[in-house]
């Protein structure tokens, strides 16, 4: 007979037959996504001119979204990898919801280099294979680097998400019958939970964690290269790599906090996603906010002090010019508000963190926009300056991506336990760690931090 402890019961509950509310949410989201898809097709049909792109601002909303979503993707895998390596005990309930964000954000973000093409139907020309005349893509082009970085990151992130799922799939397999059993059975790959398997899995996860951190860092660095490789005022700067990575993690954590808060509320996971988790993530967010402020200051100061003619024009456009409202909003929501909220313990509540996070998500989107557009609009020859404002298709597609994120997340949470059951158990064991006859060498354990 199968005994179901409380943990399993609560964590498997969301997998039960969906309710009307769930259906409704999925339905609405699906419609929004579909509309975005329609907008894109329409754009392909009519011509790229439906966007607000113009001479000389040839990149706008779409590339902003690209950078933004790739940034968001740095929440999951990177965070959970770091937490696994440092063995932060509080990571256990967090890691999976984080890794899921990565997977989906990457899928969405990776779509934009395709969407923004003048001839999207030829996107595969970016893929490194020789064409009929044996001509390969140009490996000197940052866009090709993007291809390698993103595909590597996506592959490893998906695996990184999947491996720890195997034991949970096994659990579901053993607790269900019929079609469901076969499906989860297949996914479980015949997992039995022998000590060997546990060791292999743990080690594999360790290696993945080690490998994925540099990959994640490289991904957003390379995204930043898309800009810093070009001789464009305020783009051509060596700070962009770290600046983008920091920004990515920053927005990622914010996204994660929002997701967790939602899960907690909707799936009733109050007792697993505890305030302590938000507290800790909040601290992390505060650090990143300060780091972001530090980078931004560096970037602005060097431009301002260097006083290069072209750079100063862009600088002025954002500092005092037509883009200044956006700029100062960004500074407020990315730095001022988060630092106030998160540095005061009393405010570092779940609500506080969520408020800060929402602001940050908006602010980081703005940051990407402000990096791309004003620079392109203020290149070296003032006669050729220009401005940019989005047109309906771009807005529709942008909205659709957020809907897509929510949709994918909702669906995932419906079919997969969003908190890793076995890892929670492992955590539980270590808490009540009972005395054993054989003395256990310290190194023999995955040295849990008993805090």
């Amino acid at each position, binding site marked *: 007979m199968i005994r179901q402890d409380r943990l399993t019961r609560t964590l498997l509950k969301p997998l039960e037959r969906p309710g009307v509310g769930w259906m409704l949410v999925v339905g609405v989201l699906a419609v929004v996504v579909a509309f975005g898809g329609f907008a894109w097709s329409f754009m392909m049909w009519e011509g790229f001119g439906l966007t607000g792109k113009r001479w000389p601002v*040839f990149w706008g909303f779409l590339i902003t979204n690209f950078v933004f979503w790739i940034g968001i993707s740095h929440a999951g895998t990177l965070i959970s990898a770091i937490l696994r390596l440092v063995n932060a005990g509080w990571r256990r309930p967090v890691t999976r919801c984080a890794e899921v964000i990565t997977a989906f954000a990457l899928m969405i973000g990776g779509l934009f280099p395709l969407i923004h093409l003048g*001839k999207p139907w030829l996107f595969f020309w970016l893929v490194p294979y020789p064409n009929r005349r044996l001509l390969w*893509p*140009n490996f000197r082009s940052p*866009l090709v680097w993007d291809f390698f970085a993103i595909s590597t990151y996506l592959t490893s992130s998906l695996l990184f998400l999947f491996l720890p799922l195997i034991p949970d799939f096994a659990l579901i397999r053993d607790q269900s019958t019929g079609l469901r059993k076969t499906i989860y059975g297949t996914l479980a790959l015949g997992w039995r939970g022998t000590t060997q398997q546990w060791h292999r899995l743990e080690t594999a996860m360790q290696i993945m964690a080690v490998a994925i951190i540099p990959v994640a860092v490289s991904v957003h660095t390379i995204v930043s290269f898309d800009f810093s490789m*070009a*001789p464009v005022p305020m783009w051509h700067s060596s700070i962009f790599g770290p600046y983008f990575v920091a920004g990515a993690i920053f927005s990622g954590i914010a996204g994660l906090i929002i997701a967790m808060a939602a899960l907690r509320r909707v799936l009733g996971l109050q007792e697993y996603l505890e305030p302590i988790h938000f507290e800790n993530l909040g601290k992390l967010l505060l650090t990143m906010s300060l780091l972001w402020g530090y980078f931004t200051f560096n970037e602005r100061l060097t431009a301002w002090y260097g006083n290069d003619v072209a750079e100063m024009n862009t600088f002025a456009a954002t500092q005092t010019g037509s883009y200044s409202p956006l700029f100062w909003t960004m500074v407020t929501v990315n730095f001022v508000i988060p630092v106030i909220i998160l540095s005061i313990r009393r405010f570092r509540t779940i609500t506080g963190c969520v408020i800060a996070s929402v602001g940050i998500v908006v602010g980081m989107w703005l940051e990407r926009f402000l990096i791309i557009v004003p620079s392109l609009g203020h290149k070296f020859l003032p*006669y*050729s300056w220009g401005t940019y404002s989005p047109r309906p298709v771009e807005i529709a597609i942008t909205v659709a991506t957020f809907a897509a994120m929510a949709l994918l997340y909702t669906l995932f949470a419906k079919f997969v336990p969003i908190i890793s059951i076995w890892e929670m158990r492992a955590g539980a064991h270590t808490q009540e760690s009972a005395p054993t006859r054989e003395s256990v060498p310290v190194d023999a354990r995955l040295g849990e931090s008993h805090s």
Partner: protein
Amino acid sequence: MAHRWGMAVDLDLCTGCGACVTACHAENNIPTVGDLQASRGRALHWMRVERYIEGEFPDVKTKYRPVMCQQCDAAPCEPVCPTYASHHNDEGLNAQVYNRCIGTRYCANACPYNTRFFEFFNSTFEKPLHLQLNPDVSVREVGVMEKCTFCVQRITAGKDVAAAAKREVKDGDIVPACAQTCPSKAITFGDLNDPESRVSQLAESPRGSKLLEDLGTRPKVTYLAGAEFA
């Protein structure tokens, strides 16, 4: 010896009349986009005459500067292209292969001179305007970048003529549309590898300078300064 095409623009001769702009449209099948698209910044002027007005009334000074693709030797637009649509040909031109272009528009962003333009829609030529189209130049489809080619079709034709006549291309054989129409003859075109060509000599002129020289793009267009060097 391989050619290395270059241009010299004498700012002391440019009267800002814009003949080069229209001539470029006529020669290169550049569509007119109409008022709506023009207002959205989609006007395609491979050649433009920049105008700058300094000072305040009554002491104002105006200058004109024709700007076209500078055919840089170290062109920022080339390496960023993932498909080699934008690359360097063996005569030093920044070639743009329209049917390799998938429209990332990265080259246009990388170009410091903003001399690259994008086909936002399939260009239309209301009948019978299509009868004017130059059969030696392809009409670009939607979604590709395009730019000044130094009238590469005229270069090819010029070389063919020379070859047919069993002789080398002489200086002045090949003239781009802008240079040919320029009423004050402000634009000179030629082979920079031929030390005797007028363009080579003008490139050496003390009045000469390159646009945004310090970016290290090594343009092949020389601008000859105006009055202050009188």
